[in-house]
């Protein structure tokens, strides 16, 4: 006879196993990168330009380049994403146009990153004649993370209780005053979290910057937004596949810096979220 209690135990075990299997790859990635990358980290590695055909020296230009690109992406994507989210959540009615916009956002999120790269090349680099530059790269990354920012912001805005809006309106506040003074302040944690997660993704992508900004080897800092820069993910790709005889330490060191950067961003997002959740009063 089958023992239902034992069946349950086996099922629980399988569920637990499946869950643990998610942890394993993440843990292994982190452990291996730290183990192999950490020994490479020193002040020179972080602050020097690459030397001897990128086999020695540091990765400072790539770090700076990635920070520039991420900053550029946020300057472009946050205002547009936030305004779109406000429109969708507060103003739009359920009609064909709105459904079209929502469909566009979903599809934007599903476009492979290399396609963004080609799109950026065609539109920003060639059509607008920005050339391969920080501007082109930032815009391309910005478009890539738009759906993340829009979706997160919309959810944050819509999670503000409807009753707050009614109270504000009933006191004679206009719709915009209600959004500005009641809805937005209470949605900021969610918006920030979404934005930072989007930036984490932008920092790590290679394909969108491949044709639009990333320099193979450029041992100097950019002078303007129309200059090319090196960027961490592309630099990692280059020293891993394009340059022979690069010390493993340098490669994993670069990977470590990139991973640390992205994890730091995610950590900041987590901290913001938990801090505001404690402060949340309803």
């Amino acid at each position, binding site marked *: 006879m089958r023992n239902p209690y034992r069946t349950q135990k086996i099922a629980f075990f399988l569920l637990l196993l499946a869950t643990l299997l998610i942890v394993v790859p993440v843990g292994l990635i982190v452990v291996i990168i730290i183990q192999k990358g950490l020994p490479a980290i020193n002040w020179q590695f972080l602050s020097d330009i690459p030397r001897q055909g990128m086999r020695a020296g540091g990765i400072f230009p790539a770090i700076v380049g990635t920070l520039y690109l991420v900053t550029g992406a946020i300057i472009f994507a946050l205002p547009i994403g936030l305004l779109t989210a406000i429109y969708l959540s507060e103003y739009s*009615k*359920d009609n064909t146009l709105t459904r079209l916009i929502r469909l566009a956002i979903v599809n934007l999120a599903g476009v492979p990153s290399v396609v963004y790269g080609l799109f950026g090349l065609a539109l920003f680099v060639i059509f607008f004649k920005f050339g391969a530059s920080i501007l082109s790269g930032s815009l391309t990354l910005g478009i890539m993370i738009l759906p993340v920012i829009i979706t997160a912001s919309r959810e944050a805005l819509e999670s503000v209780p409807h*009753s*707050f*809006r*009614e*109270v*504000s*309106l*009933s*006191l*004679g*506040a*206009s719709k915009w*005053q209600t959004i500005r*003074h*009641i809805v937005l*302040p*209470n949605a900021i944690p969610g918006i920030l979290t979404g934005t930072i997660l989007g930036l984490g993704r932008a920092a790590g992508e290679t394909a969108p910057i491949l044709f639009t900004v990333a320099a193979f080897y450029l041992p100097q800092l950019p002078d303007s937004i129309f200059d090319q820069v090196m960027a961490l993910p592309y630099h990692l790709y280059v020293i891993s596949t394009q340059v022979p005889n690069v010390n493993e330490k340098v490669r994993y060191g670069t990977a470590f810096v990139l991973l640390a950067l992205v994890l730091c961003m995610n950590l900041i997002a987590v901290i913001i979220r938990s801090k505001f959740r404690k402060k*949340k*009063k*309803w």
Partner: protein
Amino acid sequence: MVKLETHDLNIWFGPAHVIKQVNVEIQANEILSVIGPSNSGKTTFLRTLNRLNDLSANYKISGKVELERKDIYAFDVELLRRKIGMVFALPLPLPLSIFENVAYGVRVTGIKNKKKLNEKVESALRQGYLWEEVKDRLDESAFKLSGGQQQRLCIARTLAVEPEIVLFDEPCSGLDPISTAKVEDAMVELKKKYTIVLVTNNVKQAARVGDRTAFFLSGELIEIDKTDRIFTAPRDKRTDGYVRGKFG
């Protein structure tokens, strides 16, 4: 003087016909209680008066609502809602300090002068019978107040805008008897300055505070009369049944 009136008011939410052919005149400085079982359209009626129903999708209105003989749709909606304030069923403080909750409605009119704000907030809190309890903790979050205090804060917040009419939507439904008594005292006191429409599920409350009482059933106004009369000699036997607790 007739302050607020409806003419052949009909309201639909999608296919649901929620208010049917309602004609009411609300006198200045009276408390009109609106009673009736759940789903009789009381709250919808109330939210029609300050156009809060406009926010709902599928909302359709026919007939007329007039504030001092002027169609409420002829007002700027913000101005109308400043003239017709509302206190909701549950205490709904905004996620702000006690002071800022009361100051909010004043601030949105563009008043920034700190002294003027202080005066208005104090005066409103006094009218809401809350000043003495909160005067030393105005900067604390409004969520730290008890339920009854929160509801009086909401009343003060509504009064700070200096409305002419105050709509109360079951303001005591979440409160204990002592808090309820305080809110009722406040309402009777407010009558001197304001016109009050009170929606309540509590028949006894209507009897205690209402000058006149309107009985709604399934979206129809069955009867409206002096509160004494509604409770002692109603003309409609459905009113009689309801106020005696036979149904509802």
